[in-house]
């Protein structure tokens, strides 16, 4: 996260880390059920096998495992069948864990939006991750407040890419607070009335985040994928 701040342990209990040897943390992810995690499809490019991955929950400092940490192996990776790596469209995947997590105040799922619930332009939401900070990679989870940007306005920042309905833009024209390499798959969450947090985006792509080219970040639009997510989880829980 660029322009963010270090997060308090446990503040984002749905944030998880997709890890693989020998690199360790590769992508962010989001807990949406006791056995189910969302991340983006591009994290699995070149690492498609479930057995090479582990998912770490309840962690703040990647370098110092905490007592609240839980680690699970990956049972199954479900990539969106329309994922297009050339244009990074339909960039979403569902990860089934080998066993359920134990829900604690440090490990807790986020809410998914309903089909008709979308993030409104000019509202303020949060992104989190262990991605690049512009000058270094952090050990501690970072958080940043970003503003949702309309698709039309976002398109003006990306002449070379089409912003599709599967994408959601958030950030600032000046790029002051933005996600960066290593944040991919992590959450963009907005607080609803009643203090409940809902997942609207998954960090997907953007400009080279610490280059001269600024602009908002582009997130996978979770609302667009709700039907697909629910049906995949149902299918793999009750029918297969």
């Amino acid at each position: 996260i660029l322009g963010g701040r270090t997060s308090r342990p446990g503040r984002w209990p749905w944030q998880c880390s997709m890890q693989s040897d020998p690199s360790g943390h590769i992508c962010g992810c989001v807990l949406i059920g006791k056995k189910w995690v969302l991340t983006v499809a591009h994290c699995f490019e070149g690492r498609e096998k479930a057995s090479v991955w582990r998912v770490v929950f309840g962690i703040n400092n990647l370098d110092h495992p905490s007592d609240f940490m839980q680690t699970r192996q990956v049972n199954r990776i479900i990539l969106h069948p329309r994922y297009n790596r050339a244009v990074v469209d339909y960039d979403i995947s569902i990860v089934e864990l080998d066993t359920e997590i134990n829900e604690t105040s440090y490990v807790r799922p986020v809410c998914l939006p309903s089909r008709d619930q979308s993030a409104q332009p000019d509202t303020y939401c949060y992104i989190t991750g262990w991605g690049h900070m512009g000058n270094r990679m952090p050990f501690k989870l970072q958080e940043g407040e970003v503003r949702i940007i309309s698709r039309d306005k976002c398109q003006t920042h990306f002449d070379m890419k089409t912003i599709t309905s599967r994408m959601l833009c958030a950030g600032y024209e000046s790029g002051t607070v933005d996600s960066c390499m290593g944040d991919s798959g992590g959450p963009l969450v907005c607080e609803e009335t009643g203090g409940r947090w809902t997942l609207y985006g998954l960090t997907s792509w953007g400009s080279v985040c610490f280059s001269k080219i600024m602009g908002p970040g582009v997130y996978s639009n979770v609302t667009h994928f709700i039907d697909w997510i629910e049906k995949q989880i149902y299918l793999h829980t009750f029918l297969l």
Partner: protein
Amino acid sequence: CTQTACPVSCSNSSTCFIQGNTTNCSHCEPISLELCLNLPYNLTSYPNYLGHQTQKDASISWESSLFPALVQTNCYKYLMFFACTVLVPKCDLDTHQRVPPCRTLCKNSKERCESVLGIVGLQWPEHIDCTQFPEENADNTSCLMPDQDVEECSPSHFKCKSGRCVLASRRCDGQSDCDDDSDEEKCSCQEQGLWECPSNNVCIKHTMICDGFPDCPDLADEKNCSSCKYNEHVCNNHECVNRSLWCDGKIDCSDSSDEWDCVTLSKTTPSLLTVHKFATEFHVCADEWQDDLSALACQQMGLRGIPITQMVHEPNGRKKWLHLDSNWRHQNVSALQMLLVKGQPCHSRSKVSIVCEKEECGFRPAARMTKR
């Protein structure tokens, strides 16, 4: 390796791991960089001539934004071809080594386009030193020069009649971007070889019609896609499946849609358990019903918690009912609909009503306070 880890371009090479160096680890890979999908070659080798280790690095690089922007100025006919030869160098299938652009191509591109960049205060990419590339026809070296018919515009661009390249997203946007206005001609979907969503006039590819994924807001691209017989029901992907197989607990549609949404709750009060078996809605008879079956129903609907079960007496109910199979206790099944059968009497004349709880989600732990 000189670095602590193998470069990504070598990550699949056993040579890199075993011998600890990157020699001979180069390999050819298909071009995926959108900008360069219309080249006369389709395999590339990394790292490229700009120092990017992967196509992903190249796709988000400064240069991959710069060249397409520059190509719109029409500064050099073969600029995009040159840009692609350095962004995704051609891979020689025999040697697995990259093939460079010829020096002349590089020099022509730089001479004609560098000055345009200067106008807006930008510089020619410093990695591109034309002297690193061989001269055409030099001994024992091969290099790339454009053919006459090479595509001048990238796939992300529209070629104006005048030859200029403008962004494809600016075609048919109501404003002229070509100097001859040709980007605003023939703007109907049909004339672009696309299909038009009736409700919002958005054009979609023909391959997106009836593919099981709605692309038009009113789902028009997924309507009228199948003609099922009277005893069949249509799957989400437009296959036809016999109605008797609907919600039987086994997948019959190849996309499994015959087993989706089989268990729901009615919007009425009390909320009656409703099962969509045989493509028809049934209520469920309360005979032999147990709380763990209510829990299974709630789970199938994505809801958790301990459900509240009620038996709603309905002596004159005419709606079709399903009944628990007499053998249901001995069946090891994962979905409720597999346990239910029709055509049996409901002795209690009561229907099952359930109230499920929504799964707890989205709450953060309360901030701890400490005395100062």
